[in-house]
């Protein structure tokens, strides 16, 4: 695995596995995150996967008590990366799969018409192409539980809105550039809203599983009508 290792601070490393947004590079990021998580590194506090990089952050005090430094942790991480190359991707943990119901009807999808116009497709075709592929959660960011999904049909890549909304409803399914995602809570946002899911994506009252989607998870959307969406209880559809 080709990796560029950077000292981000006294207690954080950034491992960069590529310079582009792509499924294979991102898959390697999640693979490395799994590997480091199971390596029980001392004082490890955060592992933050992004499109092409993995942030590895340690607790400074715990590092000191463990007699370790960020340099010694960098050496440990580098050797794990090398070993990973040797063992290849043979024992990859299977990623979790979700099926997410989406209502693509007009009052849940205020920008669907605009997306159809920009892409030159009719609305049915936009919807069909949006729920056709299997997506991968590249990373979470922007807000708690906001998952950036890779795998959007390139034809559906449309620019963000010129006038971002001050409040996007929770559950809104949206396209922003080459990505799609779901607003987990009511948030300001500039992505094009093309549907809505009844599922709860973020629940801060559940300390064990606050987020439905985790980095590396696989996601498929399936269309539901408004009536079904309204009646769907949280917890179904995965």
């Amino acid at each position: 695995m080709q990796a560029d290792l950077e000292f981000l601070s006294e207690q954080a490393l950034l491992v960069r596995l590529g310079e582009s947004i792509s499924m294979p590079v991102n898959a390697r990021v999640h693979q490395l995150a799994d590997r480091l998580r199971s390596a029980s590194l001392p004082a490890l506090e955060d592992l933050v996967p992004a499109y092409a990089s993995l942030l590895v952050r340690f607790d400074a005090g715990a590092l000191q008590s463990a007699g370790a430094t960020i340099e010694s942790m960098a050496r440990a991480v580098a050797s794990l990366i090398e070993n990973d190359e040797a063992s290849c991707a043979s024992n990859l943990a299977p990623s979790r799969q979700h099926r997410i119901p989406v209502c693509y009807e007009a009052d849940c999808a205020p920008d669907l018409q605009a997306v159809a116009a920009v892409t030159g497709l009719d609305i049915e075709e936009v919807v069909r192409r949006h729920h056709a592929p299997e997506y991968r959660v590249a990373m979470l960011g922007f807000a708690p539980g906001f998952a950036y999904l890779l795998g959007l049909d390139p034809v559906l890549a449309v620019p963000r809105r010129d006038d971002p909304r001050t409040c996007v409803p929770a559950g809104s399914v949206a396209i922003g550039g080459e990505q799609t995602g779901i607003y987990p809570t009511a948030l300001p946002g500039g992505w094009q809203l093309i549907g809505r899911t009844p599922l709860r994506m973020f629940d801060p009252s559940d300390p064990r599983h606050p987020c439905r989607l985790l980095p590396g998870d696989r996601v498929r959307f399936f269309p539901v009508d408004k009536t079904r969406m309204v009646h769907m209880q949280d917890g179904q559809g995965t």
Partner: protein
Amino acid sequence: MIEIIEPGLQSSLQDVGRPGLAHLGIGRSGAADLPAWRLANALVGNDAGTCALEITLQGPRIRLHADLTLALTGAPLPMARRNGEAMPMWRPVRCTTGDIITLGAVSEGCRSYLSVEGGFDITPCLGSTSTDLNAGLGPLSGRALQPGDRLPTGRTRRSLKINRSWSLDPRPWFQSPSENAPLRLMPARHTRDLRASDRMRLAEEVFHVSSRSNRTGVRLESDHPLQLAHRCECISEGVVAGVMQLPANGQPIVLGCEHPVTGGYPRIAQLAAADLPRLAQCRPGQSLRFVWTELDDARRALAVQQRSLDDLCMRIAARLD
């Protein structure tokens, strides 16, 4: 219980924050000036992780509904009053039911901490009682204090021995910005992409702290925007507190305790972690200078700071026993 009569400019409950959840898009948040927060708790005999009130620029007015020992640390509050009498900082202060505590304005720096013996009796959200104002997580649905808020206080465990005659020396835990000691920067990924003249200027120029600064980050302003020698295409990656980003307008932002978990701007420097508390004390309008340092020196400074904080907390605990 304490009752908030006036909330001040932006007062929020804070502890050490929510480390370990950044991969879920959940930031750490927590007290901006961690040593000042920790000392406030130590001074009233609380455990290191206890929730305290973080005060920004203008403090609240509070009514006590119990006999409580309080302590104030961080930025100076020269107008702090207990029932109209001056209230000292950096030491435990015994107060009684019905007392009105008026903290007034912060005279220099930005953030002060008010701890309450026994802490606040607050249900943790995702393992922490800190407030994430951006994400709306934590006590009071993740918002700052409002008039009429009633905060239940925790149980006090033992009687503190409080001798009248002592208080902590605020230095080095609060340094007056007028002393203007530069904050230490380490090179980061895009430091070498700055124009050579700008790389020098970062350590020579006087920057001003923008009024748009907050817990998310300190925005800097200078007469000469910084520029990269060439355009850098960045894709979002994980960031940490102290990252100095350079947006297209050339005015750097140093990320604070409530920073987003990822960022896509060029990173032109990294603030030494030992200087994060001083970053938290940057007040809009004040000037600020930087100096380059190396990872090794920054780490040593952090280790020294942590050790002297640990020592001081132990000495405070011994005094209160």
